């Protein structure tokens, strides 16, 4: 079934970009400029819309025919391509975008034909759905877990690794006591924030200062043996 992979929704939207200039800059260039300056880490607009697994925004200038004999053909307009994989249903997601990231959404879609504004989230969602095309291809890592479940699992996995490292070799009773404490910590750990990650080699490191909080499960590693 298109658009749906288990509980994950795949959305593809092609929004026609207004032909011509917005002041002294063409609308497509204005979008590109704005997108180039958007943060890609936890400050991303898609961290605000926290049910997002992966999203991207691309300006599609034209589609060039490759083949023989050569043929000159063009799209009727430039398009903003918006692709996202998220948890939950489509209307809720689109309305969340309008409610939770109105400035960013407005800054991008104001350059698109027929954009109704974000003040009425339902109208924004209806507009977006008019531009939707079918999605049959999903982000490879989508595995039917929600963003929250995935983040929690990753944190738990690294927490368990820290726990083993800090307690391996101890007596059974010591390990049991430590494990109970660890479980309590896991139970009371705050929900992980969207956009959190640990040590990915191709993304800049993010200090604890960014959110004002350290990884609650990582403290286990302070009790290193030896």
């Amino acid at each position: 079934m298109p658009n749906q992979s288990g509980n994950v929704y795949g959305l593809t939207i092609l929004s026609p970009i207004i032909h011509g200039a917005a002041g002294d800059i063409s609308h497509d260039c204005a979008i590109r400029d704005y997108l180039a300056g958007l943060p890609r880490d936890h400050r991303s607009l898609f961290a605000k819309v926290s049910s997002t697994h992966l999203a991207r925004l691309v300006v599609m200038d034209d589609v060039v025919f490759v083949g023989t004999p050569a043929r000159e053909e063009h799209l009727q307009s430039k398009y903003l391509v918006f692709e996202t994989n998220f948890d939950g249903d489509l209307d809720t997601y689109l309305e969340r975008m309008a409610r939770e990231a109105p400035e960013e959404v407005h800054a991008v879609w104001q350059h698109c034909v027929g954009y109704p504004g974000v003040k009425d989230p339902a109208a924004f969602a209806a507009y977006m759905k008019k531009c939707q095309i079918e999605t049959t291809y999903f982000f490879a890592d989508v595995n039917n877990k929600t963003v929250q479940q995935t983040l929690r699992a990753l944190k738990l996995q690294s927490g368990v690794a820290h726990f083993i490292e800090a307690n391996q070799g101890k007596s059974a009773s010591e390990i049991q006591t430590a494990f109970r404490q660890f479980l309590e910590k896991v139970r009371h750990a705050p929900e992980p924030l969207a956009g959190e990650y640990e040590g990915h080699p191709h993304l800049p490191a993010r200090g604890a200062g960014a959110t004002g909080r350290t990884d609650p499960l990582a403290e286990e590693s302070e009790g290193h043996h030896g």
Partner: protein
Amino acid sequence: MVNLNVADIQGFVLRGYNFPFARYLLLELEGPEKGRDFIGRIIPHITTGQRWENKPQSTVNLAFTHKGLARLGLPDATLLSFPVEFFQGMKGRKEILCDTGRNSSENWDEVWRNDVVHVWLGVHALTPEALEEGCAEMERIMQGTGGAYLRQAQDAKAVFIDNKPSSKEHFGYTDGFGNPDFEGADRHSQPGQGKLTKEGDWVPLATGEFVLGYPDEAGELPVAPVPHLLANNGSFMVYRKLHENVATFRDYLDEQSRHYAGGKEKLAAKFVGRWRDGTPVELSPDAPDPAIAADPKRNVNFTFGRDLDGVRCPIGAHVRRVNPRDSAGFHGLLVNRRRISRRGLPYGEYVPEGEAVSDKDDRGVIFMVLNSSIFRQFEFVHQQWIEYGNDAHQGSDKDLMLGNHDGSGKFMIQGSTDPQNPPFVCARLPQFVELRGGDYFFMPSLTALRLIADNSVDPR
């Protein structure tokens, strides 16, 4: 069946010589004319892939950096047709290779920092005398033609134990098992060395994974420069000087093994996926087995398919990361595009276990790779399988031995309920291996060398 013209292919492309002594002469070329004269005079000395009636006392092989080919005056249309990674050189690929921090080029040997290496002239020899003799001949040709200057001579030699050359490196592991077998290479195949068929048999890989001008595993000709005559029967070589922090390694192994119920040697084996004598952990998880280690029919002949949980060989162990064999799925099709042929010898003096040793001593391994696409093969293996762990389901964990560690990394040993094989986490990984320089080289065929020497490379 590919019928290779082995007389046209440099022997180093087709096989490691297993000679105990080597000197890698790193040369700067004077200019096009004298440089070509120098190449022309070296050609008769080059060791080809022809089978030896009698083993020679020494061998000679030759390869160029992109800067070297430019210095020889190759046409721009040819120079621009090389793959971009070769044009950029290893230093220019630091982001992809994670050659940062202690591995960054500011810390490399001077010769590699200054971009003066145009030519790699590799001399391998059976004895120190033969090495000196072979190198003296090279020196005479350099001086006679004035075409090349020696910028550094990098010596390397096998670790000698009881006065016999061994295959050990400085951390004590027996190295150099299992180079991939490919179609047309004239040598004895070992089960485990090529690629797996759906039926589970080992067969040679496509020639084009290692030699330019032949179909590769995708049925395509590898990306190669023009003209074809320059590219065919050539290969690309990666050269990396890897310093080994032996004191750090021994201290870390001692410290960690105090907490590991399986004992020190088993822990060392779990790091790599081989016991230090070379026995594959997958075949003999409880103890080294010299009979297996010495048996070419068994010492590379294993798969991980029945050990997907890493109970025997940890999923992040070195040999499993860099050659996942059957465990990456798709009947090995993905792995078959990421194989590399390795060469190398240690440098520096070997210090036996128990004797005082310092990280500062100059010792390590000269590690070389031959492959058709540095980007698709070596760089992929290094970036994704050494410096990252996602394909091995190890998250961001790096390879314990070769990873560029900052003290925060960890290595998971999966283990089982057997008290002698417990799960274990090695944390706070120090950097065991540091990069001290290197570059990307093109190792042309004999035909191509003659074209270069005659100034008749014609890309039109």
